[in-house]
């Protein structure tokens, strides 16, 4: 049995032979389909309304428009990496925006920073509860988070007695949604921070690595000694924190604490963004850069169509068609590949 040691081929033997050109084209198209769609959309809108669409101002505006969706969708991405659908994020966002404004308006907490941090912690706890139900209760994340979402909806309505918080919200909080850093709106800054943090978290840290392993094959991860269950808590905790952050930025931007409906606007779109992302660059996997591209695609389509003054019903229809084309372009080629 010693003879194998003598085999001295270079360890890293490249692909056996050349890939054909068409193979490579398909590969590229499937990875970059959504990005190409994004670029094409930008080009078309720029060509049609160069004066309005293709301005720095408008690009900042697009970023501003998508920032909340982006923050929520990025958190969701962490949960989806492990295959966990988080449907509680809608009411989590509502709760986040409402509770902070309530605390600040009623003076329970006077420091906006403290209030925001506290709310993030509350969200983390709720997200972890989601995770406990999923990991230790064995309930599918879909139904667990749906149920928890219903509970949260009830809690906010109960606490608020359905009343919107209008006055007494300090400027120090509003700046979170209305402020600017140079020319860049504050929500965009938050989006960038969340994107970078979660990118590093998922791609560069041990915990992120383990999450991808669990998402890829939970049984293998378990047999490799990873404490699989714990990671559902972390993932749903992060997802909840991002949702709450998004909700707080909405509240700061609007200057009111609404007791209902804040998050629902973003629920399906955040899933859409993450799923678009999962057909980008690394087909079949959820990842931060993909989600960012998905969010931008949705943002550019919405902004472009509304700048063009397209009628509302056309906006819905065209948006659906562009989405379809963007993802279709990618996946069609992947499917043909086998």
């Amino acid at each position, binding site marked *: 049995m010693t003879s194998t040691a003598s085999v001295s081929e270079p360890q890293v033997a490249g692909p056996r032979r050349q890939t054909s050109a068409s193979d490579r084209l398909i590969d590229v198209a499937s990875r970059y389909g959504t990005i190409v769609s994004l670029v094409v959309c930008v080009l078309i809108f720029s060509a049609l309304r160069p004066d309005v669409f293709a301005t720095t101002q408008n690009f900042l505006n697009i970023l501003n428009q998508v920032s909340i969706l982006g923050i929520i969708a990025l958190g969701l991405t962490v949960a989806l990496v492990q295959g966990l659908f988080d449907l509680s994020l809608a009411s989590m966002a509502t709760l986040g925006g409402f509770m902070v404004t309530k605390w600040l308006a009623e003076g329970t907490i006077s420091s906006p920073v403290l209030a925001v941090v506290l709310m993030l912690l509350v969200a983390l706890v709720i997200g972890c509860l989601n995770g406990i139900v999923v990991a230790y209760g064995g309930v599918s994340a879909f139904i667990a988070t749906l149920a928890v979402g219903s509970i949260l909806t009830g809690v906010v309505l109960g606490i608020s007695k*359905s009343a*919107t918080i*209008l006055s007494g919200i300090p400027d120090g909080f509003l700046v979170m949604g209305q402020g600017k850093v140079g020319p860049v709106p504050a929500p965009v800054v938050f989006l960038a921070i969340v994107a970078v943090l979660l990118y590093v978290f998922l791609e560069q840290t041990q915990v992120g690595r383990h999450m991808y392993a669990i998402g890829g094959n939970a049984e293998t991860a378990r047999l490799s000694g990873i404490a699989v269950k714990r990671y559902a808590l972390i993932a749903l905790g992060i997802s909840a924190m991002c949702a709450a952050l998004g909700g707080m930025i909405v509240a700061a931007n609007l200057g009111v604490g609404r007791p209902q409906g804040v998050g629902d606007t973003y629920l399906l779109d955040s899933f859409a963004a993450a799923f678009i992302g999962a057909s980008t660059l690394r087909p079949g996997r959820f990842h931060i850069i993909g989600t960012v591209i998905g969010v931008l695609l949705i943002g550019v389509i919405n902004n472009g169509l509304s700048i063009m003054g397209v009628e509302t019903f056309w906006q819905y229809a065209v948006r659906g068609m562009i989405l379809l084309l963007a993802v279709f372009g990618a996946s069609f080629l992947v499917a043909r590949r086998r």
Partner: protein
Amino acid sequence: SMSSDDSKDSSSSSTSSSSASADSGTAKDTSNLKVGLVAVNLNSPSIAAIKDAFVKSAEAKGWSVDVFDGQGDQNATNNAADDFISRGYDVIVNNSSPNEQMTGVMEKAHAAGIPFVSIYGGYVDGVDAEIGTNEFVNASLITQEMVNRLGGKGRVLKLNWTVLQALRDRDAGFHAVMSENPGIDVVKEIEVKVPGQVDDSYNQITNVLQSDKDIDAIWIGWDELAPSAVRAIQEAGLADKTFVMGFDGNSFAWDLIRDGSPYVMEPANPFPPMGEKAVQAVETLAGGGTLPSKVIYMKPCLMTIDTVPAKGEQPDWDTCAFFPGEIS
């Protein structure tokens, strides 16, 4: 600044307020204004009616209007308004978003010296002109009419969704009247689940009527719930006993009134004239003039089987009756 007390005056004088621009000393050219109109959700027929009227009337004056539809996203709506401001539009018009959620936009508009005109957004400080209706007053009057129809005695079921400010105002009107009418027994106040309001209201009314057939009237916060209420009443076999009243002015609600269903009356808000009125306000403000009142309350029309217009037609918003007393 103006307090909302002034508004009562303006509501009665609103028909004549269009001449206000005359007194402006430093008149600017208003012949080709660039208006940015933001709407939180143009899927709503009333919001769309306001927009259509505004755009039509503004374009008749040679202005250009850019419309943004937030499709339900208030945050995106605000951002769009900010965007209009930074792109140097002459006027920002808010179509139906609660103004209290747009204070940040107003500040930016004022900083840029741009008037902020609002239609049906509820008056708050910082609005240069609010064209709307006084929901508290309207609700008080129509609720009183309900009490009158019941002869001061009866059992009433109420459904509302108090998350929206306009609906809270109506709620306040309801309670104001109830507090003065001890003969009316409010059986139950139901907070409707939104979304899903149409089905939820149907189910909840059915559940109540199943065990309690002695309900004389149902008060609903807005007329989207009317078909549910009507259907639940019919199904419970109470069509001859229980009547329903609501608010807003959707054409399908008028159909119900016209057909003689249990849905008997509502104050219909004058959405199309609001759009036109807003154009006048914009013209005044952009021309450098001032309005006699920042709040312009428009008068709703009372819709009953006697006053409801023929199918497909609008009531005569200027001359229609509001108080039941005006009808006869």
